[in-house]
């Protein structure tokens, strides 16, 4: 059984309907809101699986269904759905992870008074995200992209009575909007030069060779190919959404939202939308590769930004003390990996890593949520500790997630997807920087994840909240176990010996054999050694001699206080932005205010004076000549007015009622007398 592309809209429509149901329910409608959301998500998951089944039958085909949205006279604005393996895999991932997180939220948000609203927002998010995935038009994708941003804003600020949450929501919204400005400009430019925004449209779509050839043939300022300029503008949107350097500052603050939100939106799905965008637009981004005489290729920029982000996120994560912020910076770093893979041309590896990352990062965040829930909202790892025995199920699944993220060899999915990326970076000839950054980030990732696990689960409890933690209910544990299973198994879909996933994504035939398993053996050995070193060092610093009390100094901070302080302050990015961009805004506002007050205000006053002058002239006229006659008429009118004034009660309702009654009488007269 398959889902044909004409009916693909059902996948986002179901959660949207659930969101509508949740929106009209009163606050007490907890059960219907949650069950509608979960049922819609489950149905969307089944439909996504059917769609995947259909897409895999012919993976090289981009099945589309286009239709006119509205007619402009000279042509129509077209929208459409697109079904290919990329869309289908992403839909299955989003609906499956989303479903598990919805179920987890049942337990996590149980005591929240705004439970129904929470599920309404979650469904809205899922609908927008799925719409983004099935879109065959950059315009539709952009609309859903903004809706996703809106849902993210609503959910980060879900506990809006906390000032930090409200500020974080605003920061996330505004920072991503900055990237979206580039996206919008790129979109308009693309429409102007290509005349269409459909991805695939029987040879006329913007990702098809005919249009791409036209785009690469033109050059803009500085010798850039037109496709490079448009691609880089569109990439700005991805930078904002996926938390890439320099717009990564919003993502760690977004952790103010409820933990299931962090898992769903800010780890597994929404932040991956930027990676998805670049993967979807890959033909456009890569169109300039064949040109030799351009100053820069779009993909080179993507790779370098990704490399910087991967390293930066991993370095900062080492010094964070909040369990969710460590994970947030690791998300930044992993998203950098994906961008790096896209930049070096291995977009299938990027999507592979996106899929495995979605599962193990959702697992880690839900595990963190379980810890936070059990420890009465204590998130500081210095004040946790010793939870291994108190939360056995959470501990086991969390360790699986940690090993997958750290890239422990062979068994865990993160290892295979990370190897695929490093392998691609190794083969990239433009610059060795991505490979080095990737390898450094491998060791750092293993180090800070070991630190996180050792501080949280080993040693002895360092606060009353941690000492009295109790294991979360089954509704929260079952999603953890399912995600842990996926975090292990998913890796085997894309090993070098049997790269099924990559082949299906690319629509290429599958060549697999066991000889390829250890392809690039030297690189693999190096990265395994780095993982081992990271875990070993982490264990040596944090595991062997656990922290004695919450106030005890961090072993690394004792060794190098300035470096750790700078890292803990996230290298001062936020302060830097406040000092530059914030000041600039204040200055612009002051200039605009002055302009308004002195230039426009003066003009308005001038016009007013002119009018006054005219008034004086005409008054002279009036008083002398005209008044006499009017006075007489006025006296007569005043008498008549006085007699009518008795009917004026001043009650508006009375007037309106008199009108209506008069209308009825008129109508009756006309009906009785027959219309003349």
């Amino acid at each position, binding site marked *: 059984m398959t889902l044909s592309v004409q009916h693909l809209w059902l996948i986002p429509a179901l959660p949207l309907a659930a969101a509508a149901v949740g929106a009209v329910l009163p606050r007490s409608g907890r059960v219907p809101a949650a069950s509608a959301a979960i049922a819609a998500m489950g149905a969307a998951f089944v439909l996504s699986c059917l769609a995947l089944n259909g897409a895999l039958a012919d993976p090289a085909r981009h099945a589309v269904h286009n239709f006119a949205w509205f*007619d402009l006279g000279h042509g129509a604005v077209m929208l459409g759905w697109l079904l290919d393996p990329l869309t289908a895999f992403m839909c299955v991932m989003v609906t499956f992870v989303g479903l598990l997180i919805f179920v987890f939220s049942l337990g996590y948000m149980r005591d929240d008074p705004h439970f129904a609203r929470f599920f309404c927002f979650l469904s809205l998010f899922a609908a927008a995200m799925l719409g983004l995935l099935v879109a065959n038009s950059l315009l539709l994708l952009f609309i859903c992209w903004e809706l996703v941003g809106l849902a993210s804003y609503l959910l980060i600020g879900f506990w809006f009575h906390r000032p930090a949450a409200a500020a974080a929501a605003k920061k996330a919204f505004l920072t991503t909007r900055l990237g979206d400005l580039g996206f919008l400009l790129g979109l308009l430019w693309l429409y102007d030069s290509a005349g269409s925004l459909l991805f695939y449209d029987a040879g006329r779509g913007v990702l098809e060779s005919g249009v791409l050839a036209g785009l690469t043939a033109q050059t803009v300022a500085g010798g850039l190919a037109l496709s490079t300029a448009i691609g880089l503008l569109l990439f700005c949107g991805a930078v904002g959404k996926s938390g890439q350097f320099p717009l990564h500052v919003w993502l760690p603050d977004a952790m103010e939202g409820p933990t299931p939100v962090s898992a769903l939106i800010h780890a597994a799905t929404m932040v991956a939308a930027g990676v998805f965008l670049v993967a979807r637009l890959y033909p456009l981004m890569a169109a300039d590769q064949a040109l030799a005489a351009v100053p820069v290729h779009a993909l080179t920029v993507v790779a370098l930004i990704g490399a910087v982000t991967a390293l930066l996120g991993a370095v900062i994560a080492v010094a964070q003390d909040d369990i969710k912020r460590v994970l947030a910076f690791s998300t930044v770093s992993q998203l950098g990996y994906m961008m790096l893979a896209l930049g070096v041309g291995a977009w299938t590896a990027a999507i592979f890593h996106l899929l495995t990352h979605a599962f193990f990062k959702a697992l880690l965040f839900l595990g963190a949520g379980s810890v936070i829930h059990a420890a009465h909202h204590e998130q500081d790892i210095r004040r946790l500790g010793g939870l291994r025995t108190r939360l056995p199920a959470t501990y086991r699944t969390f360790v699986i997630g940690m090993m997958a993220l750290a890239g422990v060899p062979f068994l865990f999915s993160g290892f295979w997807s990370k190897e695929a990326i490093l392998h691609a970076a190794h083969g990239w000839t433009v610059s060795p920087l991505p490979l080095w950054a990737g390898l450094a980030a491998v060791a750092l990732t293993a180090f800070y994840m070991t630190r996180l696990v050792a501080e949280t689960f080993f040693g002895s409890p360092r606060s009353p909240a941690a000492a009295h933690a109790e294991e979360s209910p089954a509704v929260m544990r079952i999603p953890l176990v399912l995600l842990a299973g996926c975090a292990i198994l998913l890796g085997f879909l894309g090993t070098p010996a049997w790269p099924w996933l990559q082949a299906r994504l690319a629509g290429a035939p599958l060549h697999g054999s066991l000889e390829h398993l250890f392809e690039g053996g030297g690189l693999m050995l190096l990265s395994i050694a780095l993982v081992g070193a990271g875990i070993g060092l982490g264990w040596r610093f944090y595991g062997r001699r656990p922290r004695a009390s919450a106030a005890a100094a961090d072993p690394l901070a004792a060794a190098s206080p300035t470096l750790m302080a700078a890292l803990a302050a996230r290298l001062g990015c936020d302060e830097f932005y406040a000092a530059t961009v914030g000041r600039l805004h204040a200055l612009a506002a002051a200039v605009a205010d002055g302009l308004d007050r002195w230039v426009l205000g003066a003009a308005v006053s001038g016009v007013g004076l002119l009018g006054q002058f005219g008034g004086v002239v005409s008054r002279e006229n009036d008083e002398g000549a005209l008044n006499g006659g009017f006075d007489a008429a006025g006296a007569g009118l005043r008498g008549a007015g006085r007699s009518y004034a008795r009917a004026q009660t001043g009650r508006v309702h009375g007037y309106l009622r008199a009108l*209506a*009654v008069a209308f*009825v009488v008129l*109508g009756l007269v006309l*009906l009785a007398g027959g219309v003349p």
Partner: protein
Amino acid sequence: MILLLALLILVPAAAAMLRRNLVHSALLLVLSWAGLAAFYLWSGAEFVAFAQVLVYVGAVSMVVLFAVLLTRQNPDRAAPPDAAARLRAGAAVLTAAAVGAVIGHAILATPLPAAAGAPPVLTVRQLGLELMGRHAGSLLVIGALLTVALLGAVVLAAAEPGEKPGGKP
């Protein structure tokens, strides 16, 4: 289809007129206006539908909400419905029913053309030509009216010179 649309338009409108909470009324009216936009869309008047969404669902509803919030009263000051109010409501429903009966009778008694074919097509381009051609004069008048209304609204709502900016007379 039209019955569905009618339901979407009439039910929120009626509910809005019955609610005591003004914010609820305003939000229900947004729903009703959106239903009207859907009706226009269904009739083939896309541009009017977009205008309806922009002006009513977007702008007028915001102005209403602002007015509601700016003039919010203490809950204890909102008088419970008294006898006069009940009398007025009764009279209002009677009057409205009479008006409805007269119009409804007139409609049903009129022989109207039967169902037309497909929705007529009026592209935005044609509409623009109409507006800038045959109706250009009216368009200018409307523009002037909007400007004057804007200025008038500002003058009416602005704080008076002697008043403190906080709006507490």
